[in-house]
């Protein structure tokens, strides 16, 4: 270190400092939410009067939060699975064939990421109302109505990340498998899927997280009494602002963080994202 000229040392300090500030900027909300969740008093005010874990207990004991958590989990898991079933063939086709309007299709699949959530939610609402009027099927406010809305949130992630994996996939591996006696399906199962697994897992994980945390789209699609976790939190905040909301948020963050870490342990998703 000491052999570095002063200007280069200065540059290194500046770079490290900037990186540190950026990290802090990202982490501050998390830090504050976590801090708030262990306040002892009911009305958040500074300085805290003491610390307690009772809000975690209150959060878990709250039936609304609990049932909303299950709804969110079910919607997220099912929407992610459907999103994967749609995205995998789409990504394969986009990667392998020179499709007519291939670029346009690829962008269209990313649309839900670009269109503001509130617009997407409203559009879906109108679409479902019109469809219900036209067909007489009970769509509005149904569980499957929300799920199909959330599929749109999942697809951009799964398509993008599977495409990224496919871009790094050497197709001579497929030829090698076929040369060794594997038909197309066996080749896909034994060679292609394991090779792009990091992209599939990462896509599902991010898709699930974006469904799980979504508020704007869900707001338009839920039925009274049936809520997802973000909506339950919002509704709770309309009446009270005690730290149990913070505690629930921290638990939500923890669940997602653990999911990320555990998957990364088995599938190196850090190679894709």
């Amino acid at each position: 270190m000491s052999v570095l000229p002063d200007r280069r040392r200065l540059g290194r300090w500046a770079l490290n400092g900037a990186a540190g500030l950026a990290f802090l900027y990202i982490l501050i909300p998390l830090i504050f939410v976590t801090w708030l969740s262990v306040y002892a008093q009911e009305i958040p005010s500074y300085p805290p009067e003491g610390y307690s874990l009772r809000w975690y207990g209150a959060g878990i004991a709250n039936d609304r939060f609990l049932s909303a958590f299950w709804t969110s989990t079910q919607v997220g898991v099912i929407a992610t699975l459907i999103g994967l079933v749609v995205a995998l063939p789409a990504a394969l086709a986009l990667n392998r064939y020179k499709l007519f309007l291939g670029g346009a299709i690829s962008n269209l699949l990313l649309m839900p990421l670009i269109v503001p959530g509130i617009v997407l939610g409203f559009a879906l609402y109108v679409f479902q109302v019109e469809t219900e009027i036209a067909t007489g099927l009970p769509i509005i406010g149904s569980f499957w109505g929300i799920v199909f809305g959330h599929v749109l949130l999942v697809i951009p992630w799964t398509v993008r990340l599977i495409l990224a994996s496919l871009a790094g996939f050497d197709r001579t591996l497929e030829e090698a498998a076929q040369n060794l006696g594997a038909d197309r399906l066996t080749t896909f199962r034994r060679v292609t899927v394991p090779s792009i697994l990091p992209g599939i897992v990462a896509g599902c994980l991010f898709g699930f997280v974006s469904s799980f945390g979504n508020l704007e789209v869900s707001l338009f699609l839920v039925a009274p009494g049936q809520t997802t976790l973000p909506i339950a939190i919002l509704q709770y905040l309309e009446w009270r602002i005690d730290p149990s909301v913070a505690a629930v948020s921290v638990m939500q963050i923890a669940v997602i963080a653990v999911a990320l870490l555990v998957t990364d342990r088995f599938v190196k998703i850090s190679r894709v994202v």
Partner: protein
Amino acid sequence: MARLELNALTKRYGDFHAARDVSLDVPEGEFLVLLGPSGCGKTTTLRMVAGFVEPTAGSISIGGTDVTRLPPWKRNTGLVFQNYALFPHMTVAENVAFGLEMRKLSKAETAEKVKGALDLVQLGHLADRYPRQMSGGQQQRVALARALVFRPDVLLLDEPLSNLDAKLRQEVRIEIRALQQRLGITAVMVTHDQEEALTMSDRLVVMSEGQVRQVGTQRELYETPASRFVAGFVGRSSFLEGELRDGRLVTQGGLALETPKPVHGKVTAALRPERIAVSAEPPAEGTNVFPGTVELVSYMGGLIDLHVRLSPSDVVVAQVTNQGGGTLPATGDRVYLSLGSPAVFPASDPHARGH
């Protein structure tokens, strides 16, 4: 292990012929090498045999069975890829076992054969490694074991040595050849490296522009090249261009060469560098002796290349052995070259047959 026959095999992409009328007969146990510059159709031909490219016309038969319309997985060929194409998510043993698994062998039999194949390439001790933990040469041998373990009818090698460094290439070259002979397996290899082609093959096929230009043993191709192209591609040649005048080939620079056979019109003479005798004094006898000036000396240890200018427009390369002791030829030296009798080809078309 079987005879491989290609019958008027053609692959067309629009107007472009990637391969045109390729007919080859590879007897059981032969090592055939397809040699040619890139884009000559050798890889397309190999991929048609493996089943990855569907021929536009013609047929392929392996061991007397027509496989032209069979998918790759029903052909029983073992292909070694240029980049090895080992499955990165499988261990070495799993890679080698893949072909046996597809053939539904029992676990015990698979394990035994995998071990045998890995021992064959001296990698038995690395069975549990992953490909990324191995050197290029080791990966190459795993690829070879994987292609051989299920006893394919034909072993196909697509530039298998091009990713190895020079020293390793020599070793693996000998290893592959020894293995092929020991197993008595029919093999077809594609390469653009003529040294590789010369040292490994029983017979060579020289290709260009999608067509077979000449088929023969190394010696046949070297001694009696069919065209100017083959003379330039198999071994080295210096070319002198000229026109027939009074029964001799007269170059633009005014050299008049005796040719072994009467020739007509514009022709090209091909001279092998090592067949040109170099002397400081005019030799007592010899055909086509010309004086010249050494322009460039390229010292390669045992051999020395001399670029000698015979006239303002004619330069030939002569190769002499390094005898040691005496003085070496130097740039600017005056020397006499005995060219011997050259092979002569029509000048108009590099693929035209010689006289």
